[in-house]
Every structure is written in structure tokens, then in C-alpha cells.
């Protein structure tokens, strides 16, 4: 068995197949962007580090068990990301396995863990500490302080000390200089990295088109942290960022560093990057970044998620910069109703503005991915019909590469979670235990008590789920094979 300073484990979400076999399957496979950077930071500081992704391991070898990792390594620290709430059960389950199979100090991090830090430590003895918010310096200091058990000096830490839950006083919010030193492309630390780079969606075993053959290598490009607005449903908006990380305003990764990451991606044969950070509509940062990418001759495709509509110049610059083979611009109008959009989206726009933007995309020959949601505040059944009509028009007239409508799940720390009454919600998920239980039942194949965690004043949870089925059926019937 090999001694290791820190073992990172990404807990893919497990679910039990509904057929007779009741197979153990995995979904939500994307790792938080910072995981590899954290691993690399520790590695460069002399700590031996390995990253395991339980979903990728299971896709490679169906008999894989987390316990297997502890037969290979004896880690001092096990770091488990609990960023997205969908990993609530699996993160804790892995923490239990780590405690049972090693003497490691078990640390959790990420938004969900940060938001529910005290509750998690109170309920689950297998978790020793949680880093709230940005984890770079805290994790390094935790490694240094573990020897002398002086954890009070580690910033952003909530930990168990002599049976009491404690919170360190020091606070760390990563600034641009902290981001500058990070390397997000050290895939060497990730076990089965080739398989991870072949992922083209989150879905894993839940992929509705399992016969699809992935032909590209894909990576997620870090571009910054934070948000400038609050969407009603988002647990990563401006307010949530302040609450969880203390960050008042968004910050961008230095452009030179982004170029360096892209160059490293190219060395790994990455074909396309996912770009999901767009907090300011003026997009000056991107105009400059795109020009630098062109100047450097970086040949890569991009899936860029626009948080607000752009002008035509941006669409043109995007088309000029990225290899068009796998490039798309993604927009999320969320709803066909302008009224509902205003109520829920931080960046909102009229349908006329949306149509004008779609014309730009068509004229500049850029394929578009479009995403809608249901379960929004003020969304009545009639308002949802507007969503269906808008989607129909988009598919008929514009170069839509992909279109879907998902029922919103209540996100911890989102405005709707923090003040449900203001948004017309009756919520069923409040505490960490509610999320943990939701995903425990999924993993065991038990029917969930609630899938979304709320009803709205205007629609029941059942109606909301039904809306998304109806939407996706409508799209399939409009164009056979449309995916």
C-alpha cells in the first residue's frame, strides 16, 4: 500500500436502475473545476496527491468499489468535493468508507458543503472538517497544521475539535493573484483521465442516447468566480456567493493564464472547452481574450454559455476565434413568458431581443443550444404554453443544435430557498438532510418523497415535472431524431 498525503475523490451520484436487475448506475459526472487545480497546488507544494472520480472508475470497471482505492493507498487526508447538492448522499457515503478503511482526516469542500457545514459536521461523524468557500490556501494550511492539530489557524475551516464544532476566525477569499498561480490542466493527477476527457455530458448512465459515440475530447475551462446578479433559482448567484464564499463581486482568471490552460489542453489533445462564466454583459474581457487566442493560433472549439444576450459583434468574434467543428453558443431564456423571465432571471430580455439575437447567430452561422426551465416563480400552466410556443418557433427558424426543458430543483442558498414565500414556493427541501435523503433514496432505488423539493403557488411539483416531459416530447415529435 502506498502512502499518500492527500487523496481527492469526486463522488459521482449513484442511482439504482428501475428494472428487475436493480443495477447500481452513475450520473452527474462533471467534477468541480477547482478539484484538479487544488490537487496540482498541493502536488507542487510537495504533497503527494491523486484524484479519483468514482463515476469514471465505475464506467471503466462495473465492479469498482470505493474501498478498492484504500487497498492501494493509505492517505493522510481524503478530500471530497460536495459542490453540487446532487452529490449530497454520495459525498457522505464516501466519507464513511474513507473513515472505515483508513485513518485519514476527511475534509469536504464546495458550495453545498460550505452552506451546510455545521449541519453536516453535527450529523455525520465521518466528516472531520469542511472548508467553506475558496479552498486553495485553507487546504495548504490544513496540510501544514494537521501535524500539530492547530486547526484554528486554518482559514475558512469548520471542524470538530474535542467533540465541539468550531469555526476558524481567519477568512480567505481568493483574489486574482491567487487564481493566477493555479493549474487547471494537470490531468496527470487524475486516474483514468482519458475516459474523463471523453465525457461530453453530465448524464453518465442517464444519457437518453446511450448509443452515441463520443468523438471529441472535452474539458471545462476556468474563467473566473462569482456572479453579478441573482436569478431566483440559482445557488451560485451574487447573494449566495457573498453568503458562502464572502466574494462581493465576480473576478476573472487572468487572460494569460487562460491562454496557458488552453495551450495545455491542446497538448492533451482536447478538442473543445466548455466556457460558463459570463457575469458582465459588456464582455470586454472576452473581446480581449478572443483576440489573444487568435493571435496565439490556438485551435480549439468552444461551447460558450451566454448568461445574457450579446451583441452581434460578440457572435462574430466567437465565430472567428474558435474552431467551428464543436462550437456552439448556449442561451437559457428559461421561459417563453417575458413576465416570468423578468421575475426570475438576473439578466432578462424580451422575446423580440431574443429573436434578434437568434438572427445574429443564424447570419454568423453559429449553432445554438437553448435551455428552458419549468417550475419558475409566477409560471402558470398558461405561461408554460408560451414556453412551448417559443421553443417551437426557435426550432423551426433557427440553427438549434440542442434544446431542452428541465424542471428546476430547489438549490440550497438560492433566493427561492432563502425566502420561499417571496417567490411563491412551498418548499420540501430545507436542511442538508433533505438533500441527503433525496439522493440516498435514489441510490437505493426507493421512490423519492419529492424530486424537486417544492410546489409553487401556480403549479404542483407533479405538474412541473409533467411540463418538461411534454416539452421534450414536443421537440422529439417536431424533428425525428432531434437530440
Amino acid at each position: 500500500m502506498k502512502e499518500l498525503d492527500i487523496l481527492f475523490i469526486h463522488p459521482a451520484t449513484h442511482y439504482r436502475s428501475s428494472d428487475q436487475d436493480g443495477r447500481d448506475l452513475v450520473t452527474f459526472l462533471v467534477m468541480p473545476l477547482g478539484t484538479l487545480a487544488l490537487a496540482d497546488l498541493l502536488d507542487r507544494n510537495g504533497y503527494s496527491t491523486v484524484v479519483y472520480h468514482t463515476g469514471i472508475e465505475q464506467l471503466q470497471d462495473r465492479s469498482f468499489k470505493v474501498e478498492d482505492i484504500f487497498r492501494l493507498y493509505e492517505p493522510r487526508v481524503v478530500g471530497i468535493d460536495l459542490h453540487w447538492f446532487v452529490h449530497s448522499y454520495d459525498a457522505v457515503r464516501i466519507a464513511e468508507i474513507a473513515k472505515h478503511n483508513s485513518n485519514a482526516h476527511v475534509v469536504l469542500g464546495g458550495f453545498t458543503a460550505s452552506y451546510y457545514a455545521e449541519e453536516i459536521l453535527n450529523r455525520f461523524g465521518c466528516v472531520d472538517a469542511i472548508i467553506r468557500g475558496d479552498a486553495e490556501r485553507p487546504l495548504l494550511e490544513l496540510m501544514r497544521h494537521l501535524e500539530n492539530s492547530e486547526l484554528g489557524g486554518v482559514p475558512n475551516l469548520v471542524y470538530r475539535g474535542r467533540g465541539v464544532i468550531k469555526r476558524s476566525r481567519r477568512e480567505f477569499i481568493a483574489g486574482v493573484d491567487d487564481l493566477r498561480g493555479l493549474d487547471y490542466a494537470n490531468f496527470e493527477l487524475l486516474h483514468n483521465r482519458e475516459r474523463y476527457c471523453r465525457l461530453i455530458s453530465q448524464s453518465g448512465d442517464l444519457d437518453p442516447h446511450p448509443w452515441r459515440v463520443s468523438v471529441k475530447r472535452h474539458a471545462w475551462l476556468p474563467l473566473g468566480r462569482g456572479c453579478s446578479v441573482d436569478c431566483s433559482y440559482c445557488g451560485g448567484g451574487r447573494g449566495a456567493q457573498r453568503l458562502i464564499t464572502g466574494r462581493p463581486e465576480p473576478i476573472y482568471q487572468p487572460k494569460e493564464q487562460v491562454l496557458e490552460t488552453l495551450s495545455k489542453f491542446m497538448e492533451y489533445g482536447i478538442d473543445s472547452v466548455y466556457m460558463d462564466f459570463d457575469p458582465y454583459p459588456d464582455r470586454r474581457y472576452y473581446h480581449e481574450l478572443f483576440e489573444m487566442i487568435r493571435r496565439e493560433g490556438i485551435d480549439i472549439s468552444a461551447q460558450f454559455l451566454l448568461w445574457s444576450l450579446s451583441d452581434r459583434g460578440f457572435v462574430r468574434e466567437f465565430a472567428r476565434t474558435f474552431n467551428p467543428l464543436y462550437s456552439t453558443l448556449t442561451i437559457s431564456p428559461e421561459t417563453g413568458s417575458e413576465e416570468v423571465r423578468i421575475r426570475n432571471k438576473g439578466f432578462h430580455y424580451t422575446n423580440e431581443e431574443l429573436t434578434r439575437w437568434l438572427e445574429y447567430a443564424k447570419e454568423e452561422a453559429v449553432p445554438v443550444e437553448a435551455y428552458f426551465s419549468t417550475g419558475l416563480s409566477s409560471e402558470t400552466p398558461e405561461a408554460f404554453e408560451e414556453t412551448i410556443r417559443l421553443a417551437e418557433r426557435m426550432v423551426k427558424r433557427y440553427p438549434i443544435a440542442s434544446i431542452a426543458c428541465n424542471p428546476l430543483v430547489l438549490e440550497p442558498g438560492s433566493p427561492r430557498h432563502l425566502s420561499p414565500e417571496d417567490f411563491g414556493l412551498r418548499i420540501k427541501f430545507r436542511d442538508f438532510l433533505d438533500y441527503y435523503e433525496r439522493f440516498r433514496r435514489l441510490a437505493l432505488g426507493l421512490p423519492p418523497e419529492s424530486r424537486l423539493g417544492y410546489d409553487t403557488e401556480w403549479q404542483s411539483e407533479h405538474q412541473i415535472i409533467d411540463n418538461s416531459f411534454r416539452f421534450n416530447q414536443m421537440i422529439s415529435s417536431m424533428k425525428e431524431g432531434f437530440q
Partner: protein
Amino acid sequence: MPVFEMELHLPVKVFRRAPFIYTGVDSRSLILGAFSDPLTNRGMNLQRAFPLLVSSRHPDGRLADQLFSLAFLYIDDDERRRLHLTHPILLEGEGEALETLLSGANRIASTLGCASMDIEAHHEVLGSISFPSSMSPISYDLGKATLIGLNEVSLIKKGFRAVEEIRCLSADIHYLEDRLSDEKRSNEYVAAASPKEFKEIEKMCRSLPIRSYTLSNADATLNPAENIPISEGTTWIIRRRRRWGFGELTVEGFMRWSPNLFEAMERFRTPYLPLFQDILRYEYRAGKVFEWGFRSRDKGIILPLLSAAAEAMKHMGIETIQLGCVDFRQGFLKNLLEEYGFKVVHRIRLMRRTVEH
């Protein structure tokens, strides 16, 4: 001696080294990085497309991409499975990796139970070849693509034999119009078909006895014609009144053409031009009749259709007309076209090898 490895991967650099237009049924899926169209045969869902990338491994472990070919599984008219390889693209090196590509493709073809493995070789390319330029859903701009030199003799030594030769002929549209106007002919029943009208008679058109070459009638998915959008004035039908009928019109022939989308690709840089229907409205210098069919070898069927297509092209400012997918058995058509000023500008040889199981 470099060590070559093959994997299934369509790297972005292929589009730079060989700009192409994709006309497969699953273009939306490909944008997202996947081929989604499976082949259902004998109760099995089989993977249809195989992006074959051969790389050489450097001593430091780094891989350098050498050759690329997109392979497609299809069912021929006799219900046999075949694997079709597009002309390999040279990404680096001198093409020494061909052997690895062929043996890798053979392994796939063998696993899939294919009767043969075919290579589409662009044997002769003279000047600018209009879109579509392939029998497969991937049409390379042959003026720009860095194709590997496929030596027919060495392919024959490797067990291949030429089974088809598909030609494309080209003419100056003004010259053609002058020649056609000299002919006394009736085009009374030549009419443009709207997309909806063509859909209604598509089956009838595609069952005409003399037709443009396709890899398979039984498995039309691969036929680029299936996914090229139809717009006003690009599909022409000739009908005749049956002698024994009472006013009933039968389809005697048809032609479908497309402007040379490679020209649009210079400006719009996307392999998915068929998704952007407005693209057909731009100005083009060349157009190509890529799908056609006739009930008989009658000049009275072929020339009116050609005239109508040429006139529609001229109306769009097109100066060069091409007619593709003429197989080597259709000498009468080649001779007829040559009479009207056409010259062969592109020959595709289909080289076939029995799969070693």
C-alpha cells in the same frame, strides 16, 4: 521506425486541414461531439460511424496525429454489411501510417461482420469541385484538403480492387445555355418542385431506372442527397403524359442541384451549412447537380431538365455547372454531356477489399 496507434477520435484539426461539410442525419449530435445514428440490422443496433485517427507515439510518450479517415458502416442492396472509408486526410508525416489505418479498419469491419471494406479515393481532381464531393456524408473541399496520395498499384498489392468509378463533369453555364438553345425541344412539363412536392414524389424519383450513383438504395442514410436542403428552384421534375392514359402525368426524370456550399464555407467556416438554410441565398460561382434520375436514355428527358437547372443557376449568378455521381457504366450520359461542353473534372474510385475475418 515510428510506432503508430489508432483511436476513434475526430480532432478539430481535421476541419482545418481538410474543411468539410457534413450532411449526415445526426449533424446536430456531431456539433455536440457525438455520432448518434446507429445502424439497425438483423435486430441489432450497430455503431454507424468510426472516426479513425492514426497517431505516432514520440519517445517522450506524446502522440502526433498522422492520418484521419471517417469510416461508415452501411448495408448494400444485397443486404451485406460494408465499411466505407473516406479518402484519408494527411495531418502530419508522409502517410506511412496508412497500413495501421487499414489494419485497424479491417479489425472494425471484421468485428461488425462486414463483407468488405471500401476506400473512396479521389483519383482525379481538376480545378474546383463543387459540393457535394463525396458519396459519403462528409464532403471535403478538395481544393483545400491535404489528402494522402493513394497509390492504386500499392492498394492493389494490399488486396484492393477498383469496383466503381464515379465521375463529375463540369461546363461553362453560358456555353451550355447557347448549345441547349440550339436544340428544338419542348419543356412543357418541366417544373420546379417545392420541398413539399418533392417529398411526395421522392420515392417515385428514386426508383427511376437510370440514377445518380449512391452507395446503397437499401440504406439511404449515407447518401448526402438525403440531407441537403431543398429550396425553391433547386429541384426540377419532368413529367409526360402517358400515351395510353387519360391525361395522367408520369415522372420521367428529375434533377436536384445545390450551389457550391464550399464557397459559402470560406465565409461562414462551419461544417454544418445545411443547418443554415439562408445560406442558399448568397451569391455562388458554381452549382452542382448531385442527384438525378431518368426513366430512359432519352435526350428529350435529360436536356430539358439540364436546361431548367442551368437556367435556375444562371438566375443566381452561377457560371459553372457540374453534374456528379455519373458511374462508369453510364457512358451514354458522359458522352451526351461532353457533346454539350462538359468535361470530366473529378473521378472517385471505390477500392474494395474483402474483409479478413
